[in-house]
């Protein structure tokens, strides 16, 4: 409380001083005569504007240099460098515009301030030539950026290669559930009505494709193989975000989405590049999903193909290890049996 009181007091004192300064300046302006006081204040403000620009602009550019390592972390997917080069091209063009316009804005403000009583502005209401120039030039630059951007966008969002490895990721409050299709290469069907504490995805056990599906706690990806992520959400919106792979796609309940990409750097390679022995790729949630939004973290590993296959072979099927013969399976079978029975009863009564 003591520090609170003191800081409040300081704030109040500072504000009182500020008001007193204001009063004094007003009084001195009266003594000097309005016009003179205004021109004097123009001088000061013009100078301060110039200083703001002359110090500020290099400072901003210098800060970009200092922090260049944290910009766009090392890209680890095939399409990552495409996004990064698009970013760099945009930085290049907008950077030129930024520097020129800010310099002109502040320089003109400094240069053309009122200094003398008899000063007059130059009558220059419009110029068709100038206006055409600065309509056409930005249009051309933007057209270049649009064409470059859309080409890359189509490449990135185009259909996944036939041989892409399919992995399903489902967001829930506040975790990700990761499922691999198993040996058959097919993800078993699921239904949100079948979700139970032991069957978090609502897999339908009568579908044989579910029997070899693997549920794991870490996302493993093979190097240089296209991966197609099927993205689902169970409760609210989430967003599947892999910053190093330049991958982001919302997870929407009732509307599966997807994103395919090819990892190009193993976890081991990234550890070398970053010089960080403990480096790990991470999966994060990028769409506000409630109070635990900030904690939806999963580790991601990129393995060589052999490592990946070895790892995958070691993972047990979820059905075999946790479901087969349990109450969960029996109950789901019984429920669907009842449902089938009801349906046939209904069909009979209609007939």
């Amino acid at each position: 409380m003591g520090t609170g009181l003191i800081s409040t007091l300081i704030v109040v004192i500072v504000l009182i001083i500020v008001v007193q300064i204001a009063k004094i300046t007003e009084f001195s302006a009266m003594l000097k005569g309005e016009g003179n006081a205004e021109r004097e204040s123009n001088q000061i403000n013009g100078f301060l504007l110039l200083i703001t620009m002359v110090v500020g602009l290099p400072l901003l550019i210098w800060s970009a240099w200092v922090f260049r390592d944290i910009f766009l972390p090392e890209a680890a997917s095939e399409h990552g460098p495409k996004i990064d080069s698009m970013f760099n091209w945009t930085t290049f063009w907008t950077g030129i515009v930024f520097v020129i316009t800010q310099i002109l804005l502040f320089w003109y403000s400094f240069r053309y301030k009122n200094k003398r009583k008899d000063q007059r502005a130059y009558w220059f209401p419009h110029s068709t030539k100038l206006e055409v120039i600065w309509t056409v030039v930005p249009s051309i630059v933007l057209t270049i950026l649009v064409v470059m951007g859309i080409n890359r966008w189509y490449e990135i969002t185009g259909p996944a290669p036939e041989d892409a490895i399919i992995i399903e990721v489902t967001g829930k409050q506040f975790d990700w559930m990761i499922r691999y299709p198993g040996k058959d290469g097919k993800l078993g069907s699921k239904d949100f009505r079948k979700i139970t504490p032991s069957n978090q995805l609502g897999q339908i056990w009568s579908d044989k494709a579910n029997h070899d599906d693997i549920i794991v706690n870490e996302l493993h990806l093979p190097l240089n193989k296209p991966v197609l992520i099927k993205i689902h959400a169970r409760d609210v919106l989430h967003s599947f975000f892999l910053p190093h792979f330049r991958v982001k796609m919302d997870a929407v309940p009732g509307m599966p989405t997807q994103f395919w990409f090819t990892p190009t750097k193993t976890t081991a390679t990234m550890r070398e590049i970053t010089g960080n022995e403990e480096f790990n790729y991470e999966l994060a949630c990028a769409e506000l999903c409630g109070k635990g939004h900030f904690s939806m973290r999963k580790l991601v590993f990129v393995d060589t193909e052999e490592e990946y296959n070895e790892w995958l072979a070691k993972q047990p099927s979820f059905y075999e290890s946790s479901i087969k013969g349990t109450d969960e399976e029996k109950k789901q079978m019984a429920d669907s049996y009842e449902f089938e029975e009801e349906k046939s009863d209904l069909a009979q009564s209609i007939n």
Partner: protein
Amino acid sequence: MNQQVDQDHAVQVDHHHDDHHDDHHEHHEQNFIEKYVFSQDHKTIAKQFLITGIFWGVVGGLMSVLFRMQLGFPGESFPILETVLGKWAPGGVISPDFYLALVTMHGTILVFFVLTAGLSGTFANLLIPLQVGARDMASPFLNMLSYWFFFLAGLIMLASLFVETGPANGGWTAYPPLNALPQATIGSGLGMTLWLTSMAVFIISTLLGGLNYVATILNMRTKGLTMTRLPLTIWAIFLTAIIGILSFPVLLSAALLLIFDRSLGTSFYLSEIYIAGEALVNQTGGSAILFQHLFWFLGHPEVYIIILPAMGLVSEVMSVHARKPIFGYMAMVGSILAIAVLSFVVWAHHMFVTGMNPFIGSIFVVVTLIIAVPSAIKVFNWITTLWRGNLRLNAPMLFSIGFVSLFISGGLTGIFLGNSTIDIQLHDTYFVVAHFHIVMGISAFFGMFAGVYHWFPKMFGRFMNNTLGNIHFFTTIIGAYLIFWPMHYIGMAGVPRRYYSYEAFEAFNKFGDISLFVTTVAGIVFIVQMIFIINFFYSIFYGKKVTEKNPWQANTLEWTTPINPGHGNWPGEIPEVHRWPYDYSKPGAAEDFIPQTVPLKAGEKDLGH
């Protein structure tokens, strides 16, 4: 300026100590309630909007300081927070739920209550009748209702801060299912119901105001005031009102459907949801993405609803204080028109990574980047307006210059985000936060400050202190850059927005220093705004008195009214307009300004066509 001081001067009333009512056009004496509370005078309503807006600005700003404390000092205990916030800050640390509530309320309040109502409401009400030469709005009564609906919306929102389950905390965009299901987040209970109710009431206010603005501008312009002789302020406000009328009803429908989903068991936005141990088997077949389309159909035009009036104010203020016509008046009008039209067809650039068809995404890339062209034209025109001007670098002018600087900085980062390829990485990161705060948050505030410093003499018959204005300007613009510039960097690193804490992620937890720096500057800038507030209220009562009708030597009609205009604005006839509003430093004229009421000389060309 000698001609400005006329007999009228003798009867000006000091607004705040008036003991004799001498409005020339009043049929009866107004009592206190009619004059200051349920007033139908557009000037009083403007002040009501402004002061309510300032109140909400302080509340919304304070909220940002609170959540910045969590970000700057993650997990650190501030016992005072527990004293003030109680269960929302156990042990003096803001809880994750309340952190999100603060973020949500900060966004809602700043976007709707401060930068829509506080900015548009104030200057549309003040300037439309005064600059088009009308005695009041087309419907003063609806105009009064517009304010009081806004006031009611504010009361409801304020009440939501004090309910047991807390205010809405699912983001100002209110995306379902998070904001449709009370079991999804604590704020999605009564807090969200109140949020939606408040928004519905607010939309009524906006529509009543907007219809009035359009009707007044179209029908009540004084003799000679053609559309191309309108000041750019009025053009900007006119198109803003039209955008609002066309887009706010869509938000209302989005909100209504959300209300139905929440309370009537419908499923416009819900499908295949399993939450809190229960499958919502009866609420399927909807689309959560539908809400986003409806929301952003308003949401994107909304950012232009915020920024266009600021652009209008800046164009006018800049021209007056540069003593130079605004460069390219017709191009300025054309670019406002282009922005207004395009603002309706760019909404899905907020949705590139929602699973929307990539082809549709590419269409929105094209349209979004096209909107950069009229914006660029405006910037070049403002800069050219300064070129070889005769600049008075007073507070309103400084804020106008600052507006252009911020609009450039924030506008350019829009070119990154509007490009869907780059947006894959930057979407929902701090880069977005930096972008929109600079381009439509801070720069709209700068437009508003420019307007307040410039038209304060018209509102209250006194000046605000210019030195305090200068201090306010320099600290705020430097502070704004120091707060938001570093956010671009952490956004590029991929740090997502709306995170309570970044500790868990190796990729995001390295930026504690930047976060602390941003929090510190944000606190300082917030305190600096108190200089403005003190200056504002102090000057209402004790500011330097305005002694001539036209203290800025401006051309527009509001400066032909008495210093403290009564209800009806002009004591006699409404003046006739003979020229465009930007005849500053015209060659051959004796003074460096020619008011719109001065007839054209023989052979003189009017630039207003």
